């Protein structure tokens, strides 16, 4: 399973980087989103994958049973997803306004003749 996730992360990073290097601003924003997803999956995988081991401390014990899933990466990812959502929403609106003002979505075409 780790292998499949590692492969997915690699594909996401590759696609994200490729899109970031394109000239169309829409693709660039999609590339950013993919990079964010890749980072999130990376944290998830780095927290080690454990099936069906909820990290709940049984009554009377002082530590969760081994092996149990590490809940912290999931909390981190949740935070990162929320932040990423806000930032991507902002990037999309900014993109829309910029394309309207500049009259193009070509990043190379967005020179500053207007200023």
């Amino acid at each position, binding site marked *: 399973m780790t292998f499949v996730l590692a492969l997915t992360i690699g594909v996401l990073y590759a696609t994200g980087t490729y899109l970031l290097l394109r000239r169309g601003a829409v693709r660039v924003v999609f590339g950013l989103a993919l*990079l964010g997803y890749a*980072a999130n999956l990376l944290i998830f995988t780095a927290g080690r994958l454990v099936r069906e081991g909820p990290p709940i401390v049984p009554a009377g014990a002082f530590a969760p049973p081994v092996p149990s899933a590490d809940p912290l990466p999931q909390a981190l990812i949740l935070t990162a997803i929320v932040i990423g959502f*806000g*930032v991507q929403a902002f990037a999309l609106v900014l993109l829309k306004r910029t394309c309207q003002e500049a009259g193009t979505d070509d990043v190379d075409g967005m020179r*500053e003749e207007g200023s």
Partner: protein
Amino acid sequence: MNLLLVLPLLVPLATAIATILLSRAPRAARAASFAGAAGLLAASGFLLSATIDGTILVTQSGSWPAPFGISLVADRFAAAMVVVAAVILAAVVAFSAAGIDAARERFGYHPLLHVLSMGVCGAFLTGDLFNLYVWFEVMLMSSFVLVSLGGERAQLTGALKYVVLNLVSSALFLAGAGLLYGSVGTLNMADAAVALRALPAQGLPSVVATLFLVAFGIKAAAFPLFFWLPASYHTPPMPVAALFAGLLTKVGVYALVRVLTLVFNRDPGFTSPLVLWIAGLTMVTGVLGAMAQTDVRKVLSFHIVSQIGYMLMGLGVGTRLALAGTVFYVLHHIVVKANLFLVAGVTRRVGGSFSLDRLGGLLGRSPLLAAAFLVPALSLAGIPPLSGFWAKYLLVRSGLEAGHGAIVAVALAVSLLTLFSMTKIWAEAFWKPAPAHDPGASTPPLSVAERASLLGPVLALCAITVAIGLGAGVLFRFADGAATQLLDPDLYIRAVLGTRGGGS
């Protein structure tokens, strides 16, 4: 819960909320904004006075013991950074009274300034890597809005570049934090530093260190990933640009210093030469970029890049004197750079333009402004007895002592070229006679209120620059103390983890 550590976060937050609530009453909002900036200055002053004797203040939020909760930590370096951040915020808020238009004020200018400072202070004070990511995002999010607020075309295209590269940096930072958690199971910086000692210095820790280096390097606008800065910093109104120029890149430098001295300090054979190369190339590309520009704002933007190189140089050399030089340089530079952007704002107001081709004759029209430009400009270039001279002196001397002749030569040459750039602005904007179609001829003279609001903060920051220059010994002793703390991570670790982090 130590209130001193929490106040620099709470005061800006409370001010931001107050200014949002007062958004219909611009005068009251302005007053609240200024009161908040003054409050932050006071809070940071208390924090500094509590840490200046070498105490490392620590608070575990929610009373969760480290490494399970989020630690807030203030050593000398962090406390001093919070103080300068508060100084710059106060100067910018005062400048904004006449330096920002009513439309921007109505659409959340003041709340954003304070949320931005909260993010900056949080990044300085946190002792947890994931929390650092969150503070970075708080800071970035408000800076995104500030940079595009107003919606002019140049602003928007600049903002897009700014947003994209900073988000790439955040994604890399997040990946680095994930990999670090995967290898040591903690994100508390002190705890991670202890846990990394059990791992070999090379291998995965080096990969993670490189990820952080790239991520913070983008934020600090270091070579080769600085292009977003000159593409965007000249577009927002000058008070915003001054705040960005003073603080945001320096947060990246601070994070680099923190992470490389505390967490990834075990493989200097790998990181030091890398940082030195980046430092040298950053200095050279920045200063060469500045020489080609004729817009005051762009000249200043490129000089931010080249100055970042000096700060990294101290980190790369890595001796106690060099780190003291870096601390000194960062503190001096924040004041000088923010001031130069504010001066550019006044120049635009008085001279009617940012373009060196169209400006002229400002020496006659406003001798006070000319003097206020000369102080930070000469300090930036490193002319004694101003603050920049001592900062460069420390770095050059530490470089020579450690046998890094090449980087010292680069630093000296770049400083000469900086002087060239500054004299270019001086000669074109202030000294040469006003051009035939003088855009400044139609600008009304500064009113009394404008003088107080625009020139007041500029002169105050000039006074700080001169004071640092004349009392360099005091700041040097402080910077030396900060460097001693940075070089002995066990102090930090013991302060955060208590007895657990004891021996190394």
